[in-house]
């Protein structure tokens, strides 16, 4: 973990990105509004939000699947959004890979595992000979805890957890630098989730990867993420390192999310309060909201007056902690 704020290398920057979709009417639907953050090399950056928050849209924009309508995305110092050369485009596809939510839906059910995993190699001719390709597939399967003899099987012959391993192997075989993992464990059973999370952590350490981990569940994210961004209706409302976000959540939406994580304890659950998010309690003056840095590395989406309120709250919490 690179917790020193000093010189951390930025691998990917999302700069004031907005993404909108045509609706057929004059008015466009804006799925992501002015997202602005950096992801550092070697970290796991989590993007947490509910359905419709724009988290997946933003993830897909990084992979050049959704075009940005405003702003730009920089990867290793080069712009990768908008019009770029064909060569650059291939470079992005190779270096940024995706792990999908539902492994059953993302694997071609009529192709063998060998083909599924080799697909990227074929597309980019990343092998010298057949023997080399097979060696690479075997290695990728072993990396994710599957056996080389699984190559000839079909996706339906695997359990959910194994299928997700195939999905991960498919991404890893490209030797990517950056991985967008879109709810990689949401479709899996509790006991399998832990396996896949451990595997992702192991691969990250071994291959010096950077993850953008998209999720809706804060309890999972706490375990895996170094930093967390909370997104609500297309707007990033809070960014902080993982410990800080749990210790001193500031934005009321973050607090509401945190309060809805069910805890595995009947006594605690009986008295645990669920806090509904009520936007009408926010500053209604119409003042402009911005993502502002309230403490080094801790950003919150606020108007001037809200920011003062958060500052006051934070100060009193810090006082108390002393």
């Amino acid at each position: 973990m690179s917790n020193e704020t000093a010189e951390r290398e930025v691998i990917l920057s999302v700069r004031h990105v907005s993404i909108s979709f045509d609706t057929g009417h004059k008015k466009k639907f804006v799925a992501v509004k002015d997202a602005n953050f950096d992801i550092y090399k070697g970290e796991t950056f989590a993007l947490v939000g509910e359905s419709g928050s724009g988290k997946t849209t933003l993830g897909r924009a990084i992979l050049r699947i959704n075009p940005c309508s405003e702003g730009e995305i920089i990867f290793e110092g080069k712009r990768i959004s908008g019009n770029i050369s064909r060569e650059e485009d291939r470079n992005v596809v190779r270096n940024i890979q995706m792990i999908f939510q539902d492994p059953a839906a993302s694997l071609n059910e009529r192709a063998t595992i060998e083909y599924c995993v080799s697909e990227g190699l074929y597309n980019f001719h990343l092998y010298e000979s057949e023997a080399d390709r097979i060696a690479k597939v075997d290695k990728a399967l072993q990396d994710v805890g599957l056996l080389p003899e699984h190559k000839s099987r079909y996706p339906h012959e695997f359990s959910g957890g194994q299928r997700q391993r195939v999905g991960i192997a498919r991404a890893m075989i490209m030797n990517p630098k950056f991985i967008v993992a879109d709810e990689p464990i949401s479709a899996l059973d509790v006991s399998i989730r832990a396996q896949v999370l451990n595997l992702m952590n192991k691969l990250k350490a071994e291959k010096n990867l950077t993850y953008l981990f998209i999720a809706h569940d804060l309890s999972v994210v706490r375990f895996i993420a170094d930093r967390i961004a909370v997104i609500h209706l297309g707007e990033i409302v809070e960014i902080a390192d993982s410990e800080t976000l749990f210790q001193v959540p500031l934005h009321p939406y973050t607090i509401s999310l945190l309060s809805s994580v069910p805890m595995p304890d009947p006594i605690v659950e009986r008295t645990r309060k669920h806090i509904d998010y009520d936007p009408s309690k926010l500053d209604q003056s119409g003042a402009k909201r911005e993502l502002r840095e309230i403490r080094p590395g801790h950003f919150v989406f606020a108007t001037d007056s809200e920011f003062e309120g958060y500052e006051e709250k934070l100060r009193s919490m810090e006082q108390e902690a002393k």
Partner: protein
Amino acid sequence: MDETRNVIISAKDVEVKFRVRDKYLTAIRGVSLDLYEGETFAIVGESGSGKSVFTKTFTGMLESNGTISKGSVMFHGKDLTKLKTDKDWEGIRGAKISTIFQDPMTSLNPIRTIGSQITEVIEKHQGISKAEAKKQAIEMMERVGIANAADRFDEYPFQYSGGMRQRIVIAIALACHPEILICDEPTTALDVTIQAQIITLIRDLQKELGFTTLYITHDLGVVANVANRVGVMYGGQIIEYGTVEEVFFDPRHPYTWALLSSLPQLGIKGEELFYITGTPPSLFNEIKGDAFAPRNEHALKVDFVQEPPFFKVSDTHYAKTWLLDPRAPKLEKPEVIQDLHEKIKKMTDKGGAFHVE
């Protein structure tokens, strides 16, 4: 809980088989369960453990290739396993025993109005006039928290959000004041903040209307919130059951230990999360001994040979594991889930990761 409570439905030794191509799969391998009037019982288990299949025997909704090959389900003096046709089920399914399914979009008809889908149930089961049914339907919509119910009566499912749709499904299920409500993963397809609202809604309605709730879920957090009693299912059997406190704070079956230990809420950053190796057993083959044995690091020799019986832990708590046999070695539950309550309390108290004002 007091012992004078009535058993409302009683399943005895239920076995369910499915014919898949030329083979038979035993999805439920002898499950017995008594539900008490007014309680909330939660069945937890992973996918394929049989939790949904088992409860489908309560409403006769097994897929057409499935049959109840053994056992009985007694409800008001009637053996539900003997009912065959839809006509036999009339007056029970949807009227006395209702089900809420996981995905509200698939339980609602997309091309009919919300209102007509609720009134249909009321008219069918109560045989009252259209106008009266509409009045009741609007009342029900208000009860499940739909604002401006009368105005939204003629809208279609796509005009409702996911949480609102699930509220409608609940309204339909409760329209005939059932005695038992089966909730099959009712919140799995919903967002976390909505999940909390739906759970609260079901609980409030239960208090008001007094039905018995049977929850099916894989989420132990939800179980802790809703249940009075819990049954853990694995490989087509209930392997442990007891009050929610007993199962969470004094679990006895190694599978229950494993399930609790792999919760991400208990994970410590930088360390490996606990996980269960291997995969659940194939139900096509006959299972010898304890179904969990091959994945169980604490498995005894006998676990591979002979199926364990239920051992009594307390009057309300039973577990199906040889570890409770007096001859078995004494084993502590894993470190992660020792002092579970203290750990979680620390997390939710001031200064803890899940503390909120």
